[in-house]
Structures are given as C-alpha cells and as structure tokens.
C-alpha cells in the first residue's frame, strides 16, 4: 500500500472515505460519552452514504443511489435522533463510560491491531480473487469495522456503548455487501434498514426498562438476573 498516489480522483475519493470510516470508528473507541459516540456514528454513516453514492455513480445502478439516500436518512438522522429521544430521561452518569473493562488507551492500541489483522486477513483470503477497486478498498475496512464494533461491545461496561458497537458492526456488514456485490436488491436493503430501526428501538426500550429496574446501565448488573 506504500505506492505513491495514482492520478485517478476516484481512487483518492475511495481512499479518503476509507480513512474517514476508520477514523470515525476510532472516534467511538476514544470518546467516553454517549453524545461523542453518537456524533462519531453519525459522521460514519454520512461517509458511508457518500461511499455508497460513489459506488452508485460508478456502476450506474439506481438502486444503490436509493440505498445511499436511505442510509443517510435512517442512520445519520433517524437512529441518532431516536436514541437521543429515548435516552432523554436517562441520567447523565449512565451515558458516560467511566470505567471500561479495557482502558481506552489499551483499546486504541488493540484497535490498531484489529485493523492490521483485518487487512492481513482480507489480503490473504482474497488475494487470488479478481476484485474490482471498490472491493479492494472497502472490504478490509468493513472487516475492521466489524471487528472493532465487536471489540467495543466486548470491552465496554455501559449498555449504550454496546448499542453503538452493534450499529458499527451493522455499518461494517452493509459496507461489506455493498462493496462486494455492488447492490443487493433494494428490497433487501430496505428490509435490513427496517430491521436495524426496529432493533434499535427495542434495545432502547429495553435499556430504559433496565435503567428503571436496576437504576444502572452497567451490564454487570444483568448478572443479577442469573438463576443461582
């Protein structure tokens, strides 16, 4: 990857968006507040919509434009607003990750390892496959998003952070399918988006219940539900 830039603006655009996606993911890792995660997620979704639009422009498939627009609308606007509204009554101390299982600094270094791992994996497994420029750029990014999202879910204590981790994983999966197949049928896209929307709503409602029941968002309190 060390080569100098090529003179094609398209590849510049792809590179910029790939870097943007990774940086916004790191933003989720480094921030400690719910507002911070949400804004990082919002930026990520905007960039994701942009990348989708670029793919649409290059392939000329109108469904992908629609998918891009839907992504922008749902992920960058509806879901963040929904989450803000639902958690409005939650006390501020439940929105801050004060004491994660793995410290933020260590998480950052582990995330760099995960990026290296996913790039290595994708290069190794798909070295022989004849992939186009989108897949080459975005597949490793999407795997990184998947891994880091999973890592965020594993290493954090606050339930809201787990929701954001889930959303990042979903973004990674969306990018994966879009980059690889250049547009699943629109129906499926819409279905997935609706699914996510419902998922977020349900988890938000559950979180609300959880904060009322345990007076805490710490997932460690879920251990109390265990049957002894």
């Amino acid at each position, binding site marked *: *990857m*060390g080569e*100098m*830039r090529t003179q094609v603006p398209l590849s*510049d655009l792809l590179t910029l968006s790939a870097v943007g996606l990774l940086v916004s993911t790191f933003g989720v890792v480094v921030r400690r507040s719910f507002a911070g995660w949400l804004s990082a997620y919002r930026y990520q979704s905007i960039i994701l919509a942009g990348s989708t639009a670029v793919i649409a422009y290059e392939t000329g498939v109108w469904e992908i434009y629609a998918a891009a627009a839907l992504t922008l609308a749902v992920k960058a606007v509806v879901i963040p607003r929904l989450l803000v509204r639902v958690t409005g009554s939650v006390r501020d101390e439940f929105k801050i990750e004060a004491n994660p299982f793995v410290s933020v600094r260590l998480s950052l270094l582990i995330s*760099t390892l995960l*990026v290296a791992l996913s*790039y290595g994996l994708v290069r190794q497994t798909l070295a022989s496959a004849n992939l186009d420029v989108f897949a080459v750029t975005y597949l490793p990014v999407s795997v990184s998003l998947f891994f880091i999202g999973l890592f965020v879910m594993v290493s954090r204590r606050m339930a809201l952070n787990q929701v954001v981790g889930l959303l990042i994983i979903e973004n990674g999966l969306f990018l994966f399918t879009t980059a690889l197949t250049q547009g699943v049928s629109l129906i499926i896209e819409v279905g997935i988006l609706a699914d996510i929307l419902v998922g977020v709503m349900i988890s938000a409602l559950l979180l609300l219940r959880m904060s009322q029941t345990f007076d805490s968002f710490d997932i460690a309190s879920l251990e109390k539900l265990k049957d002894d």
Partner: protein
Amino acid sequence: MTAQALEVVAIGALQLVAVFALAPLLTGIMRKVKARTQKRIGASVFQPYYDLSKLWRKDEVVSDYSSWIFRSTPWIVAVATITAALFIPVFVPLSPFSAAGDVLLVLGLLALARFFTMLAGIDAASAFGGIGTSREMMMSSLIEPGLFLTIFVVSLTFGGTNLTSLVSAAARTGIVIAPTMLFGLISFLIIIFAETGRLPFDNPATHLELTMVHEAMLLEYSGRSLALIEWSQSTKQLALLALLANLFLPLGMPASIDAGLLPLGVGALMTLAKVALLAMAVAYVETRVAKWRLFRVADLLTAAIASAMVGMIFFYL
C-alpha cells in the same frame, strides 16, 4: 568556502531570522482569531511584540531556592529551539545544514528544551512548578513517541530522515492521498495541539492551577528570561506548523532550491499563507473545545500514537 556553500548558509541564516522575527506575529494572529470567534475585539496582532519588548526591559526576580539550572534554562531552551528551527526548511525547500542534522535531531533538540523546562519547574521548590512538571512528564512521555511515529510514517513514505530531501520529495509528489499519509496527518495534527500547549491539552491563557501545564512550570520566571522562553515557544510553534504544511500540504512549494527566484518567492509566500491559515484553524478549534481532563488527554495522545501506527500498517500492507 565556495560561493554556493556561502549562498546556502546565507539562505539558512535569512530563513532563521525570518522565522524568529515572524514567530510572535503568528501568536498574535492566533490570539486575534480566538478573540474574534469569541465575539471580542482582542488585542492587536502585534501585541506579542509589545509584550516581549516590555518583558525585555523588566527587572527579574529569581528565587533563592533555585539553582543555576533555573537561570540557564531560558538560554538552553532558546538555543535548542533556534537550532532546531535552523534545520527545518520553512520558506524554501532547503535546510542548509541538512547534511549535519536530520528531523530526528530536530526532535532531539526540542526534547532537550522540554527536559530543561521540566527541571526548571521543580527547581524553584514551588508546588505549582511541581504540578506543571508532573503533568508535562506524563504528556511528554506520550507526545514524544507520537511525534516520532509520525515522522516515522513520513520517512517511510518519502525515504530517509534528511529534511531537505523529505520536503523536496513532498513538493515533487504533491499532496499524497494515501491512507499512510492521511493517518500520519491526523497524528501530526493532534501532536501539534499538544506540543504547542493548545486546548484541549493545555490552556495557554490561564494561570489556574487546575488547568495549567506549561505555564505552571514557568510561573517563577520574569523579565528577560520569560521573554526568551515565550519567544522560543512561538518559534517552535511556527516551525512545527511550517513542517506540517511542507510535508503534508506542499502546494506551491518548488521541489528544489534551483527553481528560480519567482517560484521560490511564491513558495515562501504560499508557506506563509498556509501557516497563517493553519494557525487560524488551530485557534478556531481552540474556541470550540473545552480543556480535557488530564487523564483523558492521555487518551487523545494515545489516539495520535494509534493513528500513526495505523498509517505504518497501511504502508507495510
């Protein structure tokens, strides 16, 4: 000494004088931008010069408890910073002494200045100085690796650590849109905020013990010593911003010193403009963020290190 070598030395001296003379102006511009974004009028952009000349003529008070370390630190800081600036190609794509010292030497000299500043913070036996040194120790132990890894990324991309060849390679290639350099840029931006003591790392305009880091170490300084340190701080700021501009945004910079007078002049003016714009951007960001809690600052610095690391990963893969 041949005529050419003489010319090179002359360019170097001229560049150094320009950096040294313009550095306070940059600080003035940053303060002005900050004031305007906060809906204040603010002092003139030349205010740092007035401050420096006033400090220059003031008598000094030196603590009884302190030693020669305290007295000599301003001089060591000034000499180390100016020598470091001598090695950085600021306005022309040439560091006249690049055969004698490279970017790692520049980092070393800046670290030397910081080392003595930290010692001076302890020397006066004041708890404030101790606070400053203690915090600076923690921050510098993350800033230095961040800066080093950023340089590492740049050196891998352009080859070598010789500053003249790095800057000319950057000028030849233009803005590099590769993940390696982009992550390096992010890392460098974070590091510059930290290294020049800007929000959210440190507030250069406060003397409140809860927030100050750099100022706390300098609390006992007055008069000419303080002027020297502040001037060095501005010089370092200008030199680092210029390095950022020349390595990552080499627009308008000719690739070689032999490009002719007109391109060189344009390049110098472009650098000035870029540095001023960057300074304004830094000042604008400063008004948008609050001071971070000390231990979260470490998170941000680790993010810089991680970002440089991702850049390196992209280079190798």
